[in-house]
């Protein structure tokens, strides 16, 4: 198992180099001069030259890339073109915020989605099943921005129960409730649909029939025999969801003024802030690699037939 983990982590190195190289190439292919954005709408050529020289943007591209790799080896992501703040500091702050939001959104998605999926499958064609699946369909279809604003209007503005955006340092854990629901709604809906269909497939298997014939209790059949086998596709999806929640929460972060990494990276794209963009891309790649590794490892826990050598 340990050898497998080490092998997977070593395989990640070319992935990191690949994503940074692709980001670097795309960055310089796309029009837009970082120095120009630092200087503002009006800038004289002398000032632009000074800014380019300060940030090393006047060096040949291969040299710039090699210097970047050299810094990365020293775990130095450089400083933001726009704010002059060390990238590692900016990403560290935002990653913490993103992790809090993603954790709560994930818990909401798993608890609501998987529970609804199991009940819907066990009570197929019941009112609960129909209602849950209609709600799940709405959850999948509803735009994140709309869900967020409606939740804010009802619970923040009209009822005044929860803050109108803001971070946990200002409002405590109350601040995370609405953004987590907003972010967790869509994955919860997917989890519900996926768990239901996966459970329905499993409970029609012959070994379930055998268990019933042997007089095993319904609860034991559902949770011990059916759910465990039905979870494999759900866990696979959960791995992708964790990656998405950690990296793709830009809209939720914007509506709720949440200081997450999604906003940071998207803003870096618009600002042509290469150090922040590269740092963000590396962190996002690492998150995806880690999430996939955890998913792969969890297969062995769910299904004893799977072994890693």
């Amino acid at each position, binding site marked *: 198992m340990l050898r497998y983990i080490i092998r997977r982590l070593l395989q990640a190195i070319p992935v990191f180099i690949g994503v940074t190289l692709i980001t670097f190439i795309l960055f310089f292919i796309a029009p837009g001069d970082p120095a120009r*954005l630092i200087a503002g709408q009006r800038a004289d050529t002398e000032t632009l030259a000074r800014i380019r020289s300060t940030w090393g943007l006047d060096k040949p591209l291969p040299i710039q890339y090699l210097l970047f790799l050299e810094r990365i080896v020293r775990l130095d992501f450089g400083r933001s073109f726009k704010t002059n703040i060390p990238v590692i500091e900016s990403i560290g702050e935002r990653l913490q915020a993103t992790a809090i939001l993603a954790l709560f959104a994930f818990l909401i998605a798993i608890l609501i989605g998987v529970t609804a999926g199991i009940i819907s499958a066990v009570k197929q064609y019941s009112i609960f099943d129909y209602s849950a699946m209609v709600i799940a369909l709405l959850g999948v279809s509803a735009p994140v921005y709309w869900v967020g604003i409606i939740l804010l209007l009802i619970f923040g503005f009209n009822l005044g129960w929860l803050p109108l955006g803001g971070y946990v340092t200002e409002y405590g854990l109350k601040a995370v409730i609405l953004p987590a629901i907003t972010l967790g709604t869509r994955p919860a809906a997917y989890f519900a649909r996926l768990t239901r269909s996966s459970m329905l497939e499993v409970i029609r298997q012959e070994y379930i029939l055998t268990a019933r014939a042997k007089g095993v209790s319904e609860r034991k059949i559902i949770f011990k025999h059916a759910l465990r086998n039905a979870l494999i596709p759900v866990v696979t999806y959960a791995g992708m969801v964790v990656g998405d929640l950690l990296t793709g929460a830009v809209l939720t972060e914007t509506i709720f003024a949440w200081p997450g990494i999604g906003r940071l990276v998207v803003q870096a794209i*618009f600002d042509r802030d290469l150090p922040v963009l590269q740092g963000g891309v590396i962190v996002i790649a690492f998150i995806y690699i880690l999430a996939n590794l955890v998913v792969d490892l969890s297969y062995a826990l769910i299904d004893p037939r799977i072994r890693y050598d």
Partner: protein
Amino acid sequence: MRKGFWLFLLVFLIFSMIGSSIAQTPQYGGVLKRSLVNDPPTLDPAMITDTASDEVARQIFDGLVEYDPNGKVVGSIAKRWTISKDGTVYTFYLNNNVYFHNGRNVTAEDFVYSIKRVMDPKTASPRASFAEPIKDVVAKDKYTLVITLKRPFAPFLSTLTYSCFWVVPKEEVEKLGKDFATKPVGTGAFMFDEWKHDVKIRLKANPNYFRGRPYVDAIEWAIIPDENVDFMNFEKGQLDITGIPDPEWDRVSNDPKYKPYILEKPMIGIYYLGFNVQKKPFDNKYLRQAITRAINKEGIVKVIRRGRAQVAYTILPPSMPGFSQENYNWAKERLSYNVEEAKKLLAKAGYPNGKGLPEITIYYNTSVAHKRIMEAIQADLQKIGINAKLQNYDWAVYLDLLDKGELPVYRLGWVADYIDPDNFLWVLFNSSNFGPEGNHSFYKNPKVDEYTNKARIETLWSVRVEYYNMAERIILEDCPIVPIYYYVSQVIHQPWVHGLYLDPLTGLSGVRYRVVWIDKK
């Protein structure tokens, strides 16, 4: 009974007067709550180019001079100054009771350091060009500063109000290095307290401020990227001052609860459609004039901007000193919306009813608000037979293409950096400023060059105004740009906020909150 009534009335009036005088007497205390759309990129005066940074840093730092609420240059740390007859030597006499937030007295040497820091290539200040006219800066004595210019530069005093000339303490800049941008130390009415990136910035009152401590104990800016959520926070009383989103404007501006608390002020800024006059077919003056007359600016301001701007006819906004009413009237008569006249001009340009004119592309930077305005222009042009399509790019790409002169018809806005016609007419239309330096129309007219160059070095205001008026008239006739509207700043504040004003240049982001007080219980 009658005596009792009069006694009651007298007591009532006395209490009302006391109550009202209490409400009108500035009070100390409280926290002023503001918001910003983005985290400010920097609080280092040498590096500031955006309004968010400017609004926060303006409370922390002071310069030699500043604008009063009417846009007049008044002393700040400099109590008075003299200008040599030839306009090249500026001598500033400083207040001797100004202290940095670290407790050290501010001297002329601090200004020498701060100005030379902006000029130093190592600083890579994006506003180094503002210091270009400076030949030398020296401390004549502890509180006397002498700035010598390479040549007379009439707007110089006005440019000194700009953030890059605010004073910074050498020891703190050197100690903190690049981190000075996030832990600034200045002389201002408020001192840096806390910054949680993308969450909030907090400044606290400076009890030793040389003009007396500010009224409020602290200012907090929450970072709220979504304007609808921002306004919800205002309506719930969690923000004291904010802007009004377009979708809310009709409701809010007509609500008696909010109406008395809306502040409006024209800004020295213009929204315009520009042509690259060196690109065919826009090298044709009559075509540019035809397009100018085809655009229904009044309709754009009334319907799309919901009246939240002023229709523009001239380059210089009415609030800019040197604005010419004569030019305004002339342009209003000769260049305002008139479909029939536009068709005649189009025919004169060689394209009767648009025949022979290829489809044109109007470029804009990505934004819903710009898109709606460009769509209106597209429809207006269709009426005279010009087919136009729209193309948008994000700001970085857009700026790049504009600089290279690759956008034949583009939209742009310009808000003055300093209050002087030079910052409009020389920057945007002098041929020495092609591309990134401001002249995105690549417009060249020898007379305009001559007048705007002469006006820069002329020290007599009345003569300068003459030059600017003549230059503006030529530009208006040549139509390298179509002025659409002048910006108007509109903000709303809570009833408990007093003393708020809007800066003539940038509206809310130019306000110094030291004069604002709150009486929220």
